[in-house]
């Protein structure tokens, strides 16, 4: 069977598992773990297919565009799907390990699995969608699943944060949908590849571009639309925080990349590109500054996400006029992967701290290296990736961006990238410093599951090891250059 035919399995497998988990709660954990285990091979298969043929596409039910829905995967999709599969796998393991043992099913776990699997299905569908309306539907599915997952924490803070997140998410999607409507009104086309040909620089297209960009900025929490992210990401349960920061916010970014470097490429001038980069730079400085001053571990990490998303927006101006666009894109994508793995690791480790100590105030981290050596190590390794120190993937990503920017003489982005690293070092050290203090007792107040510790470690190790194989995403991206779909 050719990998094209298998594209629909990517969303379908987690979706079916979600249905099973909802209908038969007793089976939910098993269904979740089974789907999580099946996803990495599927994603790998997709990636191999992309490497071989440049692009995969599957018209669902045999109906082709404009009537039917086409699933499509190129190098960028394959990288994202792989990230979802691998990070999703470890998050699932952590979730399974951190809920109470078999036989006891809490209210929280009852709802966690179906929603989490729905989220995975939505993300996978998003990354293989080939048209702008389909992307809207996927955005909504992931948004609603993500909001509900935040609410599973159950605390008043979490509910309030979830509600706020929901409003931002819904209005962001509607902005996007309005843009889709106008775009369709002007061109009669929804397909991303066909749109590239027909979008002209007329006012409706510009309005559509503005609306869609604005909506996606809200969903991606780009500064100054980031206000909803820290409360939502910090009050959710640990696996959910990890998934939100590592994967969900990347969905909006992915669509923005597709649009700006695809259909809107002719509308977007140098000015707009510099503007969105400027917002990214502001996000880096503001997010890092806030992260430095937060009293709680999870808030530090959440603000760090605001900052790290800023880096990904620097990709826009740096890749825009790069001589070697693939190299710059590789930098951005490697940075994205590094952040996905490292941030998931830190949030999972933070969950372990919370479970062990009962709170996550920064001073409570004293003694961490004695109580939870594996989690402390995971935070250290992930911290290395977040700062962007070699040999981590964070370093390779930043390096590629810095070199690309210097080659074009865009030194101001270099300054921002380097400043961001220094600020990141400050907030990471603030977390890790206390970890080296000797605690009074040898045992943490509450025991933590070993699997929960090692999943965080595995993700952190990945974020470093990826630095050695950054050539793989580069190959995937290069494989589909010129396929009409890829940036």
């Amino acid at each position, binding site marked *: 069977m050719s990998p094209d035919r298998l594209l629909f399995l990517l969303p379908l497998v987690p979706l079916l598992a979600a249905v099973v988990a909802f209908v038969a709660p007793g089976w939910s954990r098993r269904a979740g773990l089974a789907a999580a285990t099946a996803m990495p091979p599927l994603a790998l298969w997709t990636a191999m297919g992309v490497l071989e043929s440049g692009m995969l596409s599957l018209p669902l039910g045999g109906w082709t565009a404009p009537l039917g829905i086409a699933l499509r995967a190129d190098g960028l999709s394959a990288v994202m799907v792989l990230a979802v599969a691998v990070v999703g796998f470890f998050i699932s393991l952590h979730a399974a390990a951190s809920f109470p043992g078999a036989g006891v099913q809490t209210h929280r776990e009852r709802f966690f699995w179906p929603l989490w699997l729905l989220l995975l299905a939505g993300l996978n569908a998003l990354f293989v969608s080939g048209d702008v309306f389909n992307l809207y539907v996927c955005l909504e599915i992931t948004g609603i699943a993500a909001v509900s997952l935040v609410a599973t924490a159950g605390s008043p803070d979490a509910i309030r944060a979830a509600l706020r997140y929901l409003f931002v998410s819904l209005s962001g999607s509607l902005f996007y949908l*309005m843009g889709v409507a106008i775009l369709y009104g002007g061109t009669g086309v929804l397909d991303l590849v066909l749109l590239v040909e027909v979008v002209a620089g007329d006012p409706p297209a510009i309005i559509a571009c503005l609306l869609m960009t604005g909506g996606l900025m809200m969903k991606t929490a780009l500064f100054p639309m980031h206000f909803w992210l820290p409360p939502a990401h910090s009050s959710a349960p640990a696996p959910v925080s990890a998934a939100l920061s590592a994967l969900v916010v990347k969905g909006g970014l992915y669509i923005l990349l597709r649009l700006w470097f695809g259909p809107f490429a002719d509308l977007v001038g140098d000015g707009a590109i510099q503007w969105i980069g400027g917002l990214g730079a502001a996000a880096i400085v503001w997010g890092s500054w806030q992260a430095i001053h937060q009293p709680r571990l999870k808030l530090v990490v959440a603000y760090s996400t605001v900052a790290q998303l800023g880096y990904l927006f620097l990709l826009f101006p740096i890749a825009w006029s790069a001589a070697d666009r693939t190299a710059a894109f590789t930098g951005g994508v490697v940075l994205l992967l590094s952040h996905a793995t490292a941030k998931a690791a830190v949030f999972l480790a933070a969950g372990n701290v919370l479970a062990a100590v009962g709170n996550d105030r920064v001073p409570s981290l004293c003694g961490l290296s004695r109580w939870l050596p594996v989690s402390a190590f995971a935070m250290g390794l992930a911290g290395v990736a977040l700062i962007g120190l070699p040999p981590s993937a964070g370093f390779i990503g930043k390096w590629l961006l810095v070199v690309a920017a210097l080659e074009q003489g865009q030194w101001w982005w270099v300054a921002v990238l380097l400043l961001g690293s220094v600020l990141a070092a400050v907030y990471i050290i603030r977390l890790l410093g206390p970890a080296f203090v000797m605690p009074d007792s040898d045992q943490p107040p509450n025991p933590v599951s070993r699997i929960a510790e090692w999943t965080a470690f595995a993700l952190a190790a990945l974020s470093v090891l990826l630095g050695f194989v950054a050539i793989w995403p580069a190959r995937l991206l290069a494989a589909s250059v010129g396929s009409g779909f890829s940036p």
Partner: protein
Amino acid sequence: MTGSTVDLFLLVGAALFALGAAGVFREVEALRRIIAVNVMGSGVFLVLVAIAARGEGPPDPVPHAMVLTGIVVAVCATAVALALADLSRRHGSSADDKADR
């Protein structure tokens, strides 16, 4: 349908969208914001329907399909929002109760 009617629908749709958006950002109370989001959604749907009706001959089915999908999504989202708002209200009142005692 004539061009001017379509334009009117487009304009009303855009106005509803803008009103709704303003509501989402300005209102504080959850219920009002939920209604505002729905107003926003209606605006988008109206625009889509108007786009379908443009031109000669039978209306374009694709925007209709989009509106139908959009309505389904909006219903789900509203349900989630109402549930969350309800939870939030209950949490809020229980906290207030404790404070009263």
